[in-house]
Each structure stands twice: as C-alpha cells, then as structure tokens.
C-alpha cells in the first residue's frame, strides 16, 4: 500500500515574449519609463564592457575573460531588485550585477587584468569578489546570511552561479543548510545551457534546475532569463520572501551563452553556429528596446546617444586601467596576514632582493 508523502511543482514565469510584447500584465515597476530605460542602459553598458574586455584580451592587455553576452538581463535584473545593504556573491560571469551594484568599470578591468586591487572596490564593500572555483560561493552565502541574522540586519544574500555549478556538492550542501536554518539566501542560477562544452542535459538528469531546490526543502522557480522584467520581478519576490523571515529560495534563469566560454575557449569545436544564431533571436537587449520603442518613445537618437555615452565611459575606464602600474613584488606579502609574522617578514626582505 502506498500513500502520498509530498508533492511539488516548479513554475516558469515570463513578462515579455522574444519580440518584447508583454505577456499579460507587467509588474508595476515596468510601467515606469525611467526604470525601464535604466535597466536597458545597464544592459547596454554591460555589453559594451564585455566587448572592450574581449578586445583588450585579444591584444594581450587583459587576462582570460568570460563575457556575459546574451545574459545581461540576469545580472541587471537581479541586482536591480536588491538593496544596497544586501550582499552579492557573484560567479565570474555576472559583470552586469557587479556594475549595477556600483563596482566600477575600471575595477573590473583591473581584476580581469590580473591585479588583486580590482577586488578592493570602493563600491559595495561587503559584496564578494568574483568566485572562480565553481560553486564555492554558495557556502559563503550561508555564512554571510548567518551573520546578518545574528546581527538582526534585514539584508538578504544573493549568490549566483551557472548551470554547471548546480552539480557541485558545495551548492547542495549550502542549499540544504539554508533550508534547514531558514537563512535569507537567494540562489540564482544562470542556466546558459552550457558549462564550457558540456550541455545542460549532460550536466544533470533533472528536468529543471529549479527543482534542485526541493532537495533542500526550498521553493524553486524558473524564469525567462532573457526577460529583464521577469528576472527582476522574480528576484523581488524571492527577496521579499527572505526579508519576511520565510527563508531562502532558488531562481533558475533560462538564458543562452552567445559567446565562447571565455577568451581561452573556441565554442565552434563543440556547438553548431545554427544553434547560436537561433538563440540570438531571443537575446535580452532587443526585446526590451522593442518595448521601450513601442511604449515609451525610445528612438534612434536616444539609442545612439546611449551607445556613445556608454562607449566613451568604457574607453575612459579602460585607459585609466591601462595606466595603472603593476604592484611591486612586495605586494604579495602585504595582505597575506594582518601583520606579517617575523618568519615571513624575513622572506619578504629576501624576496625584495630577488628583484
């Protein structure tokens, strides 16, 4: 004999179709032209940063770089729903979220240029730097949230990762702990269908990534990740839920990686051009621009002005970055410990002599 012990359901939400036509009623914030223009501007800025970063890398002036081309709506949508005092723990592909939160273009160039000082951003001082070891940011998020609860802050923690990251033990252990302790952590998964050369469906047998939340007893939902309005709305719901003390949740943002994995990758080795072209039809910028044009008088002049402004800003930031001298060898020792133990102080001096 068999009885039902539990049942679950995963929903997927969207606000705009691929052409920018609203599907049903839009959230209130999306009725405001300025808000939409800001979201659009942030996505354009992110894309311009990406393009410049790739150009710098190609000419040997930046390290290996992973662009967020086609995924701009996620970073921007998520960050725009957050408060300043919330804490972001980004993966390596969420430039849009970092930029919206106030990390500067110059700081990002510096980081990707291979300089630790890029992580010492003036902006959101408690936000974590980019996380390279996949999935390891999720346990941190639990700790950040624990600290907030302990201090009775009302902040929420947002930890972002890719579809590949959902295969890591770190991710599940963190999900489970957040569920067990009802911590205010929102897990955002940017499912861009690829983890380098591994397809989403080879990554896991799960029908959705959102359902992984069920393992930790958390609510999970899918959202159209190329729809910045839907992403922001879903994040707002998740943040409100957490802020109300109801615990964490997971949002799977469905998107597509239009570029190579990084500048060190050649995606043509493992996927067809046609697949990529098909996904260009769903990319996030055009659809929001279409909405702006249709409803809020966006036009060619505004578009060009925006592009000019953003490009100038990016170029200026790149120039400032390129003018920064590398730190001296001694810098390796500067922040190893709060104060250098005598042992290492001797070594640091020796090292200076190696110069």
């Amino acid at each position: 004999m068999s009885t039902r012990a539990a049942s679950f359901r995963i929903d997927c939400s969207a606000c705009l179709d691929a052409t920018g036509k609203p599907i049903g009623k839009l959230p209130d914030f999306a009725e405001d032209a300025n808000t939409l223009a800001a979201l659009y501007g942030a996505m354009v800025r992110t894309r311009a940063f990406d393009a410049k970063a790739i150009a710098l890398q190609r000419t040997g002036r930046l390290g290996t770089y992973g662009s967020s081309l086609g995924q701009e709506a996620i970073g921007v949508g998520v960050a725009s729903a957050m408060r300043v005092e919330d804490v972001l723990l980004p993966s390596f592909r969420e430039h849009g979220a970092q930029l919206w939160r106030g990390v500067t273009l110059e700081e990002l160039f510096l980081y990707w240029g291979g300089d630790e000082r890029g992580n010492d951003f003036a902006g959101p001082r408690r936000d974590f730097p980019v996380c390279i070891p996949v999935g390891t940011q999720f346990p941190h998020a639990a700790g950040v949230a624990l600290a907030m609860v302990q201090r009775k802050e009302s902040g929420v923690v947002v930890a972002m990762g890719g579809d590949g990251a959902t295969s890591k033990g770190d991710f599940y252990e963190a999900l489970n702990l957040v569920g067990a302790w009802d911590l205010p952590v929102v897990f955002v998964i940017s499912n861009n269908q690829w983890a380098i050369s591994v397809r989403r469906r080879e990554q896991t047998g799960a029908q959705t990534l959102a359902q992984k939340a069920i393992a930790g007893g958390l609510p999970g939902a899918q959202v159209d990740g190329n729809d910045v309005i839907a992403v922001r709305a879903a994040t707002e719901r998740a943040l409100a839920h957490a802020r109300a003390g109801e615990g964490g949740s997971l949002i799977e943002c469905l998107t597509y990686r239009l570029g190579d994995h990084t500048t060190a990758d050649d995606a043509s080795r493992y996927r067809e051009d046609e697949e990529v072209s098909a996904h260009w039809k769903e990319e996030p910028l055009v659809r929001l621009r279409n909405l702006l044009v249709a409803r809020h008088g966006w036009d060619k002049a505004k578009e060009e002005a925006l592009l000019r402004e953003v490009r100038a800003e990016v170029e200026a930031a790149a120039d400032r970055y390129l003018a920064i001298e590398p730190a001296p060898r001694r810098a390796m020792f500067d922040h190893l410990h709060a104060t250098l133990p005598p042992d290492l102080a001797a070594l640091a001096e020796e090292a200076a002599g190696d110069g």
Partner: protein
Amino acid sequence: MAELTMIEAIRAALSHALETDPDVILFGEDIGIDGGVFRATDGLMQRFGSARVRDTPLSETVIAGMAVGAAAMGLRPVAEIQFSGFLYPALDQLVNHASRLRNRTRGRLTCPMVLRAPYGGGIRAPEHHSESPEAMLAHIPGLRVVIPGSPARAYGLLLAAIRDPDPVVFLEPKRIYRAVSEAVETDGAALPLDRAFLVAEGEDLTLVAWGAMLAVADEAVARLAEEGISAELIDLATIKPYDRVAVRASVAKTGRCVIVHEAALTTGFGAEIAADLAEHCLTHLIAPIRRVAGYDTVMPYLRLEAQYLPDTGRILRAAREVMEFT
C-alpha cells in the same frame, strides 16, 4: 587557579570567548545539546543559546565555507570538524578562500575564523579517526596552524586564535584531552601565536615536538637525563608560521636535533624543520637530523596503532644514535 584537563581548558576558552565577544559563534556537528563528541562544548549551548552554539547538518564543506562567509562579515566563527579525518572536504575552502580572502581583496574582506578539530591517534578510535594532517595545512600560505601541547597552552592559544584577525586551524591532540590536568589561569589571557615554548632546557640535543608527542618526548628527556644526556625539548605550538628563530637557536646551541611527529614521515612537518636547519644551521650540526615519525604507511586500525605511533623507545634510539654519531 583551576586544575584543568585540556578538554576543560578548551571549553573554558570557548566559554570566555562567548562571554566577552558577542561576535563569537560556534557551530559544528553535535556541538549543541550533546556538547561535542569529546565534550569540548559541553553546556555551552545551554548557557549561550542555540543561536550562538549551533548544530549543523552533516556537511563539512558548508561548515568551512559558512565560516568564511560569516568571518568576512566580521563575526568570529569557531567551527568544529568532528575529527580531523573529516576535514578534507573543508580543505578546498581553506586553500581557495579562507587563507586568501584578505590577500585577494587587498584587506577589504578578511577571515577571522577558527576551525577546530581533534586529531591524532592513541585512543583506539575507528579507521579515519586518528590521522595527523598538520603538514598539509601548514603548506597553505595565509593560514595559521596551531596545536596546543598542554591544558594551559590550549586555553591561551585558543583564545589567541579566536582573537587573531586571520584564519587559524586549531588541531587538538585528542589523546591528551584528558591525560593530565594542570593549573590554568582562566582569566582570558591569550598566549602568543607563532612562538615556540621551551618545555625543558638542555645542552646536548634538541627535541622538537608538538601535540600528544610532547608527553612521549618528555619521557624521553627524563630517560636521557638518567643516561647523562641533557636534552632540550621545544613545543612548536604554532606549526605555521613556526618559530624558526627558537629552533635554530636551540640547535645552534646543542648541535643535534631529533624531531618527533605522529604524521607519516614523507613531507611531514618535521621535513620543514630539518630543511630549515640544513640551510640555516648547517655549521652547527654535529650529527644528522633525525625524524621520529609515523611510518610512511596508512595509519593502521586500532590493533596496530600503538605499533605505528612514535614511542619513547624510538625517540631514545634516535637520540642515542645522534649522540653517538661521529
């Protein structure tokens, strides 16, 4: 002044830290109502509440990673790994995050966390429960590794570790948790990190040890004295960064050195000490440096563990060889 065993001294230090610093929180498996499988946290949850002394799910990776996150926000997490044999899933967080958060953010985010774990053999525990991983941890730049050698040092060093602005792994030699008591001033005074302790002064030979091997070495010192050999015994206490100056000075004086540790020989922490002496004290050395260590084997199950662990006999044989060397 109370007579405390090491486990009591550790509890007293944790208790003092919880009392005096609201940022201190403890978490780990079974540290709450059960007070830890060795009772290091006995009564603390009852006294300080389950928000500050908290049982976690059985997840070492998230225990370590959560400590990093909480420390970055300015808390002082003291996390427990139930046995050092289960510390490996936490290693990624130690290497890739805890030890370098300060460095990679140029001091913007820091990691004042402590990861405590009982370690070492000698209590007839099941497999995977008796190993000594200090050398691996000592190879992680940016991380401190501290091993107390007595109740008083456990008290003072644990407080120092908790107050230190950087991450510390605090390995507790469980074999001597209850072996002896000594008078411990529980006044909240910390002992200095990165400093060795001179346990016995001597002229002929330097013994370097830490953790549970100190007692074994101490007995060797007494036995050697009977033979007319005057051995100096140093408790390294902080393994990384260790007190090179103290060890070099002692060996410069005695000209002979025997290092004792439970961990396997190859790339054990004894290797670092010997290498440092081979570079900086060569002209003072009048005999080969001997390492009395666990064999290069897997720690055997309990029926053979006493055969694996360095004992006074092995230390004596090495010391005599070194003394007789010409």
